[in-house]
């Protein structure tokens, strides 16, 4: 039931912005001040978090090797899974970040009578993850058209491809569908998979609902509640925001303010939440380090001054036994006459 509160929170956010934006004079708050505050929080928070991470050293080189190490020349080295040079590490990271390579490995374990354990490949999480993240990325890119005048070519290309199916008018963006689908599948998985359900926290559901709210309001605006939405005013506001000359030309529909408010909340929430995996994935020591620890010495900046129990101390304790058993010693036993 951990999803009840986050769901209520998102509904509350919708109501706040809906009612709030209807109060005369509040457009400036929801259209300008809140977005600015959110972007500032995002940028400062994101940078703070990354700097905070970077301030701690990486004392040990601890890559997780998922393939054959570089060793003898005639043994085939797995350059991607046990990289030993920087370029190989970059390749490994690239595949991890762009293709979610580790999730591709996922298996599902089951236990049967016997006992008998079985493991089968399970790529659902990978698929849902890819679906969601890439849809989100394309949508963010598409929205850049609002902030840029003239709209750069690459963004037009993204838009063109995203609407290539030419369904309906205005034409349907595929990513609108896949984003919502991805969110529903990820949410469904959290409910249906017993293990994931048990370990999920409220802060796992909140971003799902929040992004769902953003997607829903965006889709409503484009396809269903178009009449009140003044796209010219929106573009003017968006360009104004990035050029620090924000103006609200005319009354823009509430649905826009709700959408914008939810996006603002997402931005402000981002640096203080698990969404920072966006930054963290680049910094994970088990993935971004080379498996070259026997080739190059890695330095620990706080390497403590710890000495072993000395050989001299060891020999002092056991000298007699050693001498009597013909084990060489540094110092002979005192002669018997003494």
């Amino acid at each position, binding site marked *: 039931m951990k999803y009840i509160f986050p769901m209520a929170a998102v509904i509350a956010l919708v109501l706040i912005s809906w009612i709030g934006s209807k109060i005369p004079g509040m457009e400036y708050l929801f259209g300008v001040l809140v977005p600015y505050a959110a972007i500032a929080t995002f940028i400062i928070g994101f940078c703070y978090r990354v700097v*905070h*991470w970077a301030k*701690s050293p*990486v*004392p040990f*080189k*601890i890559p*997780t*090797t998922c*393939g*054959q*190490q*570089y*060793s*003898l020349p005639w*043994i*085939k080295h797995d350059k991607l*899974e046990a990289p*030993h040079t920087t370029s190989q590490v970059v390749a490994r990271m690239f595949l*991890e970040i762009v293709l979610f390579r*580790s*999730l591709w*490995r*996922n*298996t*599902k*374990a089951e*236990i*049967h*009578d*016997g*006992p008998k*354990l079985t493991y089968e490949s399970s790529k659902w999480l990978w698929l849902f993850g890819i679906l969601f993240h890439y849809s989100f990325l394309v949508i963010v890119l598409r929205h850049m058209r609002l902030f840029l005048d003239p709209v750069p070519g690459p963004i037009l290309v993204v838009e063109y491809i995203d609407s290539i199916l030419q369904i309906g008018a205005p034409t349907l963006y595929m990513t609108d569908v896949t984003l919502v689908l991805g969110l529903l599948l990820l949410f469904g998985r959290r409910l249906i998979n*017993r293990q994931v359900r*048990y*370990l999920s926290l*409220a*802060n*796992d559901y909140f971003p799902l609902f929040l992004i769902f709210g953003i997607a829903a309001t965006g889709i409503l605006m484009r396809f269903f509640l178009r009449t009140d939405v003044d796209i010219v005013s929106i573009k003017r506001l968006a360009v104004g925001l990035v050029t620090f000359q924000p103006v609200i030309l005319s009354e823009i529909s509430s649905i826009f303010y709700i959408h914008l408010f939810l996006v603002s909340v997402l931005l402000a929430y981002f640096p203080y939440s*698990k969404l920072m*995996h966006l930054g*963290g*994935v680049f*910094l*994970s*020591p088990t993935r971004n380090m080379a498996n070259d620890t*026997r*080739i190059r*010495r*890695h330095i620990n900046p706080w*390497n403590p001054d*710890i000495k*072993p*129990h*000395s*050989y001299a101390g*060891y020999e002092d304790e*056991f000298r007699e036994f050693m001498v009597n*058993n013909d*084990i060489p010693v540094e110092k002979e036993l005192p002669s018997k006459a003494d």
Partner: protein
Amino acid sequence: MAIVKVDKLAKSVAQGPSLMTGSYPTMDWMDVPAVFKPGNFAYPAKVDIVNYLNKQQGLHFPNAREWSPLDDDWKLPENWKEIIIDGLRERLDKFRSLKIFMDCCVRCGACADKCHFFLGTGDPKNMPVMRAELLRSIYRNDFTLAGKIFGKMAGAREMTVGVIKEWFMYSYQCTECRRCSVYCPYGIDTAEVTMMLRELLHLVGVGINWILEPVSNSNRTGNHMGLQPHTFKDNVSFLCDDIENLTGVKVEPTFNRKGAEILFITPSADVFAEPGLYTAMGYLLLFHHIGLDYTWSTYASEGGNFGLFTSNEVMKKLNAKMYAEAKRLGVKYIIGGECGHMWRVLHQYMDTMNGPADFLEVPKSPITGTMFDNTASTKMVHISEFTADLIKHGKLNIDKSRNDHVIPTWHDSCNPARAMGLLEEPRYILDHVVNRWHEMPENCIREQTYCCGSGTGLNTDEIMELRMRSGLPRANSVKYVHDKHGVNTLACVCAIDRATLTSLMNYWVPEVRVAGLSELVANSLVMEGEQRQELTDGLRTLL
């Protein structure tokens, strides 16, 4: 302690209500206390051991006392909470891995069913993500804005004695095998989390004897077993006698010899008990076969390092003996024997902690001339790397048929697989010393290999049921190849494996026994001047 009958445990694992078998817990995990009962915890460290360690330079082991996990009062220091929170702060500042792993988890659950402890117990807190949440919840509460504002809603909770007890239970139900980190999209490594938990617990005097006693032994006598120099030498000499009886070859190893070309270090368990003894006989025969100029050391007589299971400080202190001894003896480089966690320390920590080893030379095989430039800095070669190179160059006189009584399968030990990438060398060796062997099913081998279930100092008898549960995934894949191909030997390069897999096989697959790879190598060697008995069981033949 009498262990539960195998039929009963088999039924319990597959049908008992658990998150693995289909039932769903009624309580939120934060509301479920850790309950200790005989059999589900390893015994606390003894007072004199803790006191001894606390006196060693660079180490800190406070609050030595008599205590039991069964007691309500664990006799923690008065300011235990402050110690823990300060300790966590210090570690966040020292380890970027800890910060990243605390902040980045999205609880996707990819790791959940990858842990052998979870598969065998069905206990939700053995899902790797949950093990980390035990710490993460405290981190959120005391170190994050969201946790401070939203509290339990944001997955934060107050540090209590109950949490300490929970940490003790679950940081000692993790073998730091890193299997979960293979599947994690951010590479979150539960081994790091478990290490931090164990370090924090030591700050308030919570540790187990099965780890700290070997640590203290290793510090004092040079090895976990506490073998004093003469005993260590005697043990090796007994093995030489056995070799002479079996093969007619007289092997005469040296100890603490200055000027030897190579220092050889292996886990002391290899010279202490079966079946490791046969592995040690394997090294002795192999080195004799090629006429290697090497020496054993009684001072650095331990390859393993239970410091890895204790704290980074202890790891460094114990490991430092290797270079110290190599320097004292004036050897050119070091060869390391078969051991799993030992090789994690040697491969990923040794050079950083105790290097630079500028008094050693880049290892070069005196037999083949091969330069091991993959260890140019650390200057320590794995016995399997060394042996594979010998075989490749045809330097070993091998008769595979001498191994026809064994049908092995290959067990990749956690650390050589996931913290080193030693996958092909042992397979190459196996290909050349036995006529047939079989891989276990995919998803259970190489980087996805399963732990023996008793690593990180959990190979103690008082938690035998737990060990048999956590070892089940490994045992199950062995059973598969035993049933299908008649596999009768589980070969490996790990001393803890040799001890613990033996118990595990006896329990789940009694037809299979455990052998070190070097034992199989030596079984197949045709020695010069040998007067070999009819060795129907290789080095294990009883004459």
